[in-house]
């Protein structure tokens, strides 16, 4: 039983170490990873994500949009109900699927060219930014259905659109290192469990004390343990064996010294 537990713990430790190291390496000390710039082909004045595309909340995302240098561009994040009503009748490119780090599927939707009101005049954006030729917006993905929109402002379209996305996970680097440390400890613990013995003599003494307390204060379940271990030596036997092993290891050395 202890061997099985030990193996399982070491397996978990290996996975945790891989995840932790991967997270720390991926995010780096600034807790963020970026992908892009990625071109998006469209001749529409608007690119939006469908509500079901961004299914996760929590991370902070920074989008940097590049378009033709003379084109004014707006990038915003909003509740999907607001966004759908706003762009519902306008010609647009919709992002219908998205996979990390950057895998897009899009669909073109026909409609009129002009928006009913300039995006900058609206009060329901969760986050927004605008600029000429480029714009950068940072938003923490909210816990509600929402979408992202890139809009060509003042006429024009989004030809030459390129998007760079940076994902930020607050404390992600620390979490990665923490996972790594946790994995090392867990692996050590698993190894000890696998070996069926404590690592140091002090631990052995502790364990012997624990066993002594158990024998005095609690019902003796040594017989059950032995049955569970299916023939494995119990901890007391291990200690005795260790001592015998240590003594056996010392004796040849002593004998060697005694030789002329």
């Amino acid at each position, binding site marked *: 039983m202890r061997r099985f537990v030990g193996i399982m713990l070491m397996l978990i430790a290996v996975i945790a170490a891989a995840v932790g190291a991967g997270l720390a390496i991926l995010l780096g000390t600034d807790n963020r990873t970026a992908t892009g710039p990625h071109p998006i082909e469209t001749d529409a004045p608007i690119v939006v994500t469908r509500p079901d595309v961004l299914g996760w909340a929590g*991370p902070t995302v920074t989008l940097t949009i590049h378009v033709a240098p003379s084109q004014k561009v707006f990038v915003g994040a909003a509740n999907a109900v607001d966004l759908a009503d706003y762009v519902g009748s306008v010609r647009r490119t919709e992002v219908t699927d998205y996979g990390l780090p950057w895998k897009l599927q899009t669909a073109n939707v026909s409609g009129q060219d002009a928006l009913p009101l300039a995006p900058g005049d609206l009060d329901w954006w969760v986050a927004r930014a605008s600029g000429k030729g480029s714009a950068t917006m940072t938003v923490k993905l909210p816990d509600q259905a929402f979408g992202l929109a890139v809009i060509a402002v003042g006429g024009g379209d989004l030809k030459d659109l390129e998007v760079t996305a940076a994902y930020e996970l607050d404390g992600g680097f620390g979490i990665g290192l923490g996972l790594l440390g946790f994995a090392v400890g867990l692996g050590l613990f698993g190894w000890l469990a696998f070996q069926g013995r404590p690592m140091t003599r002090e631990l052995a003494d502790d364990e012997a004390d624990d066993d002594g307390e158990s024998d005095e204060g609690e019902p003796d379940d040594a017989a059950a343990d032995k049955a569970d271990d299916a023939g494995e030596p119990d901890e007391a036997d291990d200690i005795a064996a260790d001592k015998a092993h240590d003594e056996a290891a010392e004796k040849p050395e002593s004998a060697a010294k005694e030789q002329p």
Partner: protein
Amino acid sequence: MIRRLWIAVMASALLVAGCAIPYPKDSHGVTKVAATPAQADLIYDRYKKVRKQALNRLDSQPLTAVEAGPVLAIDAGKLTVARRLLLSGRPDDTQDLRILDVFAPRLDSYPLWFVVVAEDGVRDLTKVQVFQRASSTTGWQLAASPETLPSTELPAFALDGTGALEPVDPSHAGRMTMSPQQAVDAYAATLNHAPGAVSEVSRDSFVTQMRQVAAQQRRVDGVTFSQDWNARPVQYALRAADGGALVFGTLARLDRYQIKKGRAIDWPDGSEQKAFLSGRLYTTGELRYYHQILVYVPPEVGKPVVLGQYGGVVDGFGY
């Protein structure tokens, strides 16, 4: 020893799990709670500011930014009456409105709307108001504003797990005796019929008051008076905690005056008729009113009852 190590392992796992890991979004689909209490405060402050400006100038134009539909027509009518008659006391000028509660439904499309229960400290009334945003590119406007007496107890509103109001489809009765639209239609029918006729609604203070007004007009000598009531489509209805519904309905009322030959009517000073019917009436005259009513439709048994109303003349002509 093993126990201690297990505790350390579990504590570490919990520590890692508690960190800012991405998680799936809520399960409410593509919806939006119309407004938070903080947003409602801002919207209401803007409304009061613009309304005060309109009252000070006796001009309904500013109101078009913050009011819509029948409530705008009623308030514009009140301002018209005040302006034409140059009343010294301006309507509602001294209103001291304070929000008591805000309730917002979770909606999947525009128009968005929410309910404000506000106390009018000066007039000692409670306003149960609906603010609506018709589209994502328009502003918030007051769409209904029935008033109740402080003694009137509103039924508790049904709220979902997130504290959002539960809207009711105006055309569906569900477990209620009638749908919200049927309840408002029934009020119009009751007011069109003679007082003794069978009615599907309660004989409440609203019905009594409206019948008294009509009876008073019929007593004017030399005038044939008629009155018609029509229900407008119900837009806002919400579930009460007991399974009933609170319905914001609007009734359109048309008062017709036919003057007998050789007779004329002089309306009392300060009356709506005098403002809209240009003084003396010789032949015919019409006045149109809107009455916004707050109707409670009980679950399963009982008749609908009006809990509050807000109304006034909105148009008229006469010669």
